């Protein structure tokens, strides 16, 4: 046994000296690392959700409403033996250290949550140990959230002074005692624009922030046995109003898990390109090994060995190689995902539970499958090499592994794609999209190479000789450049064009556009706030009355979420509309069908996208429930809306007086230059219930979120770049023999080592430059098209990025290409003599 181990170790040492074997291992390690990093991260996200499944909604079931929960529901639940809790959530301004911040306030009753827990830690710990390993303290709110205290999200906690951690909500001041790490419905919630604040429900009224027309979400949470819940559901469902809905944990769990599934699937698909490229690199390494050991099978049979035995021993050998390499890759991937989790934690405060062992087992299994799928067909083909090749040298070179080798790689890629996408159809679509993108890049680069070859006359320079090397292998060069081009495309699009688009969009907003929205203005506050704005703001919009109404019927037919197929319509049918009334269309709106209110008389004006998704036309009769008042009127016109005008806009607006008796609040917008913080504090001081939304801050927050997501995907594409470099190394290893002869030949012609070096660097730098040029160019073009066709603003691409992407790719590919064949620089020309 010991002797067998020693023999295997010896074999490993011998094989490791072969560059092809090292490439095979390196690519396998890469595949395992990529799969492990993404798999473990996904597993942790899923586990975070699973930890909360019972607690996903903080209860076994809940009733949500846009109006206060009727007491009869609570009474009924308690009568049936269910435990109950209540929450009210709404957006409001929080004043912290004289600075106003938009926050999502959640007022919770004593026993919230009924299921799961709120994970928090003391503010003092945050100040002292953010980013450290301090263990969070887990507990239910009634144990810790004391009257007068508030719990806050990480981003707010960082702004609080440890010695005076107070915050003001409306008329009340709270002491911020704890940082919220995880809450029911909160795993992904930390990425919301407004950070969370928890206060006690019994202190909500004191703040004066909630009035009958306020936009808030009211919830009744219940907990009990399945039988009690079924009984409760049967009793409640007939009583539910259009603005109320009941969710049970399972239903919500499905929604959340599908969201998590999408996140994980997105990450998996992002890494797919890297995995495919690494598999190609493995296949290249395997082909190199095949060429080196072409005669091994024939020699074995010549000496009387059995092909089956040879096949079995090779399978065992590669199995023995794949397991430790897979393990090492999984470990390295685990390290990378640990860094990723640390980054997520420091950026958002989200903590994820430790991963399970299943992704590691999956990675090792896939590593074994990958290496066997790639190597065994080649080993099998070795068995078919005629023994006569031993006698006739050179004949073996003409023997190919055949289509079986290519087929096994294609099947392997398909299987891995399905595993990563988690769906055959999705995997098919992604592979097709990748193939189309690859072919598109290939065609463009091929044309470019052809053009260069024709345009540049022959002359004596390293650059020209390098170019000729590229163009004389145009097909292969184009594939290599395509792999890099796709990577550069993704990196430039995510890293540069995205930011440029944000900037261009910001610049496209008119200089006099409002930058603050004031919402939740009570009717009696309209006049004084108007006077205040006239005095303090540079400009302001008119006041629009806001009515919150649910669409009940269209043309006499009752509508609900289930009445529609498209997501947009389903969303509209299940949520309340923000309606307004006006005698004319707001600025930035344009009539595209029907007549104005002045001509048509009373009715509704509907935004074109909404009309399309709900299937509305001129004359469609809409029936809204607005605070218990039923309002019925025809659609009299359809209009387009410029959503980026930064002014109040509405999907549906009624003619003047249509909502005469309905409860209302008001909204307006204003432009305040440089003093938004002071302005907000002044508004909050006199009108605590009014919420001031700083659009620039919202845009900044959105930008930060998009930046975070883009950074994550960019990191994945750096993986792709590394995989593309592996393919380059693989291709070059396949060419070593030919390159050695070529360099020797150049030297006999009189080329010095430095000329040869310059030629080689020029060839690969050109390859990279072309890839960077095409990838960067297509990224800028995509940005231009997106801005022009989708977002409707002018984007003037920063052409310097074209140069920088070309230069960057030239350096990376040039250096890698030279590095991988640098040992050939020392080849002596004398080797060309005598055959």
């Amino acid at each position, binding site marked *: 046994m010991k002797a067998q181990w020693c023999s295997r170790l010896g074999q490993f040492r011998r094989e490791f000296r072969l560059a092809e074997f090292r490439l095979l291992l390196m690519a396998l390690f890469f595949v395992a690392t990529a799969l492990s990093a993404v798999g473990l991260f996904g597993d942790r996200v899923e586990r975070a959700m699973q930890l909360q499944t019972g607690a996903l909604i903080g209860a076994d079931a809940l009733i949500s409403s846009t109006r206060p929960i009727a007491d009869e529901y609570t009474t009924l639940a308690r009568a049936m033996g269910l435990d109950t809790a209540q929450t009210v959530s709404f957006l409001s301004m929080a004043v912290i250290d004289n600075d106003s911040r938009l926050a999502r306030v959640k007022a919770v009753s004593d026993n919230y949550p009924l299921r799961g827990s709120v994970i928090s830690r003391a503010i003092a710990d945050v100040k002292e140990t953010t980013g450290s390993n301090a263990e969070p303290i887990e507990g239910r709110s009634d144990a810790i959230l004391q009257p007068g205290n508030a719990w806050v999200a990480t981003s707010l906690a960082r702004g609080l002074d440890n010695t005076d951690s107070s915050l003001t909500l409306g008329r009340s001041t709270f002491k911020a005692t704890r940082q919220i790490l995880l809450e029911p419905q909160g795993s992904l919630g930390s990425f919301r624009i407004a950070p969370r604040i928890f206060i006690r429900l019994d202190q909500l009224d004191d703040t004066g922030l909630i009035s009958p027309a306020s936009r808030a979400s009211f919830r009744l949470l219940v907990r009990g046995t399945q039988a009690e819940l079924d009984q409760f559901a049967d009793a409640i469902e007939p009583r539910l109003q259009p603005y109320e809905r009941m969710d049970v944990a399972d239903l919500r769990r499905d929604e959340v898990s599908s969201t998590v599934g999408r996140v994980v699937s997105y990450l998996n698909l992002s890494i797919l390109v890297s995995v495919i490229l690494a598999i190609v690199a493995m296949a290249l390494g395997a082909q190199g090994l095949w060429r080196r050991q072409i005669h091994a099978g024939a020699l074995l049979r010549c000496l009387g060995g059995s092909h089956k035995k040879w096949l079995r021993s090779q399978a065992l050998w590669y199995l023995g190689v794949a397991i430790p390499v897979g393990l090492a890759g999984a470990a390295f991937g685990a390290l990378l995902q640990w860094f990723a989790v640390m980054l997520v934690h420091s950026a958002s405060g989200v903590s994820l539970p430790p991963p399970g062992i299943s992704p590691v087992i999956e990675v090792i299994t896939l590593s074994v499958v990958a290496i066997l799928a790639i190597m065994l067909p080649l080993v099998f083909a070795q068995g078919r090499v005629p023994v006569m090749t031993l006698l006739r040298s050179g004949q073996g070179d003409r023997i190919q592994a055949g289509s079986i080798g290519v087929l096994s790689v294609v099947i392997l890629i398909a299987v891995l794609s399905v595993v990563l996408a988690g769906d055959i159809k999705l995997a098919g679509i992604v592979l097709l999209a990748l193939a189309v993108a690859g072919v598109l890049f290939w065609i463009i680069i091929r044309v470019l190479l052809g053009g260069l070859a024709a345009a540049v006359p022959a002359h*004596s320079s390293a650059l*020209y000789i390098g170019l000729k090397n590229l163009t*004389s292998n145009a097909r292969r060069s184009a594939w290599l450049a395509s792999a890099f081009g796709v990577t550069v495309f993704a990196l430039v699009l995510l890293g540069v064009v995205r930011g440029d688009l944000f900037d261009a969009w910001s610049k496209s907003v008119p200089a006099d556009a409002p930058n603050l929205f004031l919402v939740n203005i009570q009717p009696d506050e309209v006049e004084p706030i108007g006077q205040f704005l006239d005095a303090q703001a540079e400009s302001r919009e008119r006041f629009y009355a806001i009515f919150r109404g649910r669409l009940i019927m269209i043309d006499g037919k009752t509508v609900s979420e289930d009445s529609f197929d498209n997501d947009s319509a389903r969303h509209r049918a299940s949520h309340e509309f923000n309606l307004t009334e006006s005698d004319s269309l707001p600025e930035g709106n344009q009539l595209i069908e029907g007549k104005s209110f002045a001509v048509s008389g009373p009715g509704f004006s509907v935004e074109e996208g909404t009309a399309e998704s709900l299937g509305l036309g001129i004359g469609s009769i809409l029936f809204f429930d607005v605070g218990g008042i039923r309002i019925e009127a025809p659609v009299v016109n359809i209009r387009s809306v410029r959503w980026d005008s930064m002014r109040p806009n509405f999907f549906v607006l009624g003619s003047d007086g249509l909502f005469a008796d309905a409860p209302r609040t008001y909204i307006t917008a204003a432009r305040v230059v440089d003093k938004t913080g002071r302005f907000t504090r002044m508004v909050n001081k006199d009108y605590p219930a009014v919420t001031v939304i700083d659009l620039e801050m919202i845009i900044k927050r959105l930008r930060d979120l998009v930046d975070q997501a883009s950074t994550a995907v960019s990191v994945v594409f750096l993986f792709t770049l590394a995989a593309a470099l592996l393919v380059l190394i693989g291709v070059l290893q396949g060419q070593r023999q030919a390159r050695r002869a*070529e360099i020797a030949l150049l030297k006999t012609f009189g080329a010095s080592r430095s000329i040869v070096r310059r030629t080689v660097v020029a060839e690969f730098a050109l390859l990279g430059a072309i890839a960077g040029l095409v990838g960067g160019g297509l990224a800028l073009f995509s940005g231009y098209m997106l801005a022009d066709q989708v977002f409707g603003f002018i984007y003037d691409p920063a052409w310097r990025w074209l140069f920088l992407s070309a230069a960057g790719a030239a350096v990376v590919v040039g250096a890698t290409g030279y590095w991988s064949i640098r040992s050939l620089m020392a080849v002596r020309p004398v080797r060309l*003599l*005598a055959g």
Partner: protein
Amino acid sequence: MQSNPSTTRSTVVSSHALFKSVHLGNETIDILEDVTLNIADNTTAAVSGTSGSGKTTLLGLLAGLDTPSHGEVKLLGESLSELDEDRRASLRRGRVGFVFQSFHLLPNLTAVENVSLALEVAGQPDSIETRASEALERVGLGQRLKHLPSQLSGGEQQRVALARAMSVRPRVLFADEPTGNLDHRTSSQIADLIFELTTELESTLVLVTHDRMLADRCDVHYRLEDGRLVI
């Protein structure tokens, strides 16, 4: 052996007391021993001998492709032992041509591109493709300019190699068994072409061959036996 180089012409290739040994483990094998020769400008010289006699090693040393264990080689007036590899390469650039037994054409380049490559490395100023085409026409391949080596016969490949070597108008052409991979008739045509071109361009030819008849066509004929020049 004829070992009397012309004394009226200047010497372009010479060796003095040349030794070349290789070590295989503890064993030292002497490949060349005490080889002294002088090859004058614009002459043709053959080095012949049996397999393993050291003739290709000698060619490599004379052309500066390899370095001797002892002794001195002078090429175009420069002592090679005083030059490093890059300076030896620089000495060959544009002044020395090679024809190999295995042709050594780059498989992915067309005939004209293979010839152009030598001109590009040699730093020829202008009209590289024109000169490459002319060189190929001169060796009878005017109609095969755009053909890849794999589309050419062995004889045609050697013609391309000859065109490549002669396109830079070298002072010295080293030919290592140039007909070794060809049939008798093609060998004869290639040999004719080599002699015609060296005469036409007034180049010096150093030819390694085991073909006695071919060797006898040269002005000077050196024979090697077990690494030594024999009379």
